[in-house]
């Protein structure tokens, strides 16, 4: 068969077929496939160069080994019936999820300068699938952090809950959390469009997001104004879920509320991201 016989484009014929509406089922299937292709793209990059995952392991190790040990020994923070190290371990997991995701938006600025954004946007890929795929791939990176935090916590004698359902819940929460912070980061990137401004804003946000949460101390000991910030900070909700599941705390309806908040925030951010992402090509 010659190349010609395999498919010379026939404009009119193709166009008519393209205008026929496709069913909701095939449309959803395509959407999921595209989302996974974008996640696959990121995963392949990571496979070629996994050094980032190793260097990222240093920070949670320092927090747990240095900060955690010191604060556990001085008993300065009231953590109820939990030891401080137990209390802190899920918080450090949440923090690693935040830190590994919050700068991920810079990749879309790179991709914009390289024209990769343009090529993706010209392809028949739903904008939402592009953004959701990137969020999922941030989740893959964050899972590597979860593994490290679990190993360190186990070594330090944290009272880990190994119930498979709880582990599955942690996995879901980590993916949701990184989807939230990476999409938030991408939204900022879409708005500022330059590396310099992006890095500035990223630096500005990271620490306040971390400290205005219940990651390493309870909300009850915060001053009133900080309590308000902690309550609107998605990180607090992530910490709540992780603390309940990782330590095997009693499961209350509050767990569901926290998960619903995380899902809702993810959905809203993905929707905003899908609206802003095409602006990168302008």
């Amino acid at each position, binding site marked *: 068969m010659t190349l*010609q016989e395999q498919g*010379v484009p026939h404009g*009119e014929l193709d*166009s008519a077929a393209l205008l026929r509406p496709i069913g909701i089922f095939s449309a959803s299937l395509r959407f999921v496939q595209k989302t996974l292709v974008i996640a696959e793209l990121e995963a*392949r990059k990571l496979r070629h160069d996994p050094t980032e995952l190793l260097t990222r392991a240093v920070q949670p190790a320092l927090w747990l080994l240095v900060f955690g040990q010191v604060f556990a020994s001085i008993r300065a923070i009231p953590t109820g019936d939990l030891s401080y190290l137990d209390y802190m371990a899920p918080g450090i997991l949440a923090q690693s999820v935040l830190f590994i995701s919050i700068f991920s938006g810079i990749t879309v600025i790179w991709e914009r300068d390289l024209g990769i954004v343009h*090529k993706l*946007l010209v392809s028949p890929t739903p904008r939402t699938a592009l953004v959701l795929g990137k969020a999922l791939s941030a989740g893959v990176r964050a899972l590597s952090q979860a593994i490290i935090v679990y190993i360190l916590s186990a070594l330090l004698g944290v009272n880990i809950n190994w119930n498979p359902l709880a582990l599955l819940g942690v996995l879901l929460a980590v993916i949701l959390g990184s989807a939230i912070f990476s999409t938030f980061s991408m939204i900022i990137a879409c708005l500022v469009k330059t590396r310099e401004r992006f890095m500035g804003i990223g630096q500005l946000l990271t620490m306040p997001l971390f400290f205005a949460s219940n990651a390493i101390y309870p909300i009850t000991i915060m001053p009133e104004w900080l309590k308000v910030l902690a309550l609107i900070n998605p990180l607090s909700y992530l910490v709540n879920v992780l603390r309940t599941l990782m330590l095997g705390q009693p499961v209350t309806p509050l767990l569901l509320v926290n998960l619903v908040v995380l899902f809702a925030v993810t959905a809203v951010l993905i929707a905003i991201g899908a609206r802003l992402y095409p602006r990168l*090509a*302008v």
Partner: protein
Amino acid sequence: MTPILETHNLVRQFDDLVAVKNLNITVEAGTVFGLLGPNGAGKSTAIKMLTTLLPPTAGDAIIAGLSITRHAAQIRRLIGYVPQMLSADGTLTGYENLLIMAKLYDLPGQEREARVREALAFMGLDGAADQLVRTYSGGMIRRLEIAQSMLHRPAVLFLDEPTVGLDPIARRAVWEHVQQLGREFGTTIFLTTHMMEEADNLCDHIVIMHLGEEVASGTPESLKASIGGDEVTLDDVFIHYSGSSLESGGSYRDTARTRRTARRVG
């Protein structure tokens, strides 16, 4: 001859700058069409509108019977696009770059592998398929990108400054492959350039833009004839229609991008 692409009073305005003013062009199926103009003439804005990246402020364009304003999602399946910047992903192999694109264009599993292998062979890249693209030369990256944009056999292929920054040998290789695409697949090629030799070599029809407007249209021969003289080159035509200055216009960002592309190539 049947037109495969027509624009109808296409306009794009950015704040108070009219980047494209009432553009009316017709591209015949199976031909190579060149949109020429100095930096800042509105070529890139025009190509962004035609590739659905940028909605027009007014007017419309019809590609293979579909409207860019009403059927953007469907048009994306009919066109291919190679941006001006070197857009292949340096952190993936050539094969992976093609594979991801094939998946994004919904090529079915059994056909995907065959198309990717065929595209690699067609562009003379089969030997380098499993190397990371960051080890490729500029000409190889360009050929890979054209291969990416052809996997789904588009009816119209848009090339934005396809040989910017390439050395003469790599440039010639890209030209040969572009011409071969037209011959073998009947693809209509729509390219922008400000390299007159490129336009003269490749294009069946040329439109020259200046400050957002069409200032001349015709075959390379007819354009040369239109300003008379025996020794006229397309350079003279270009200078005649776009004013004597080649360097007027072109924003800092455009210049920075061209330099960056050139640096990656070199």
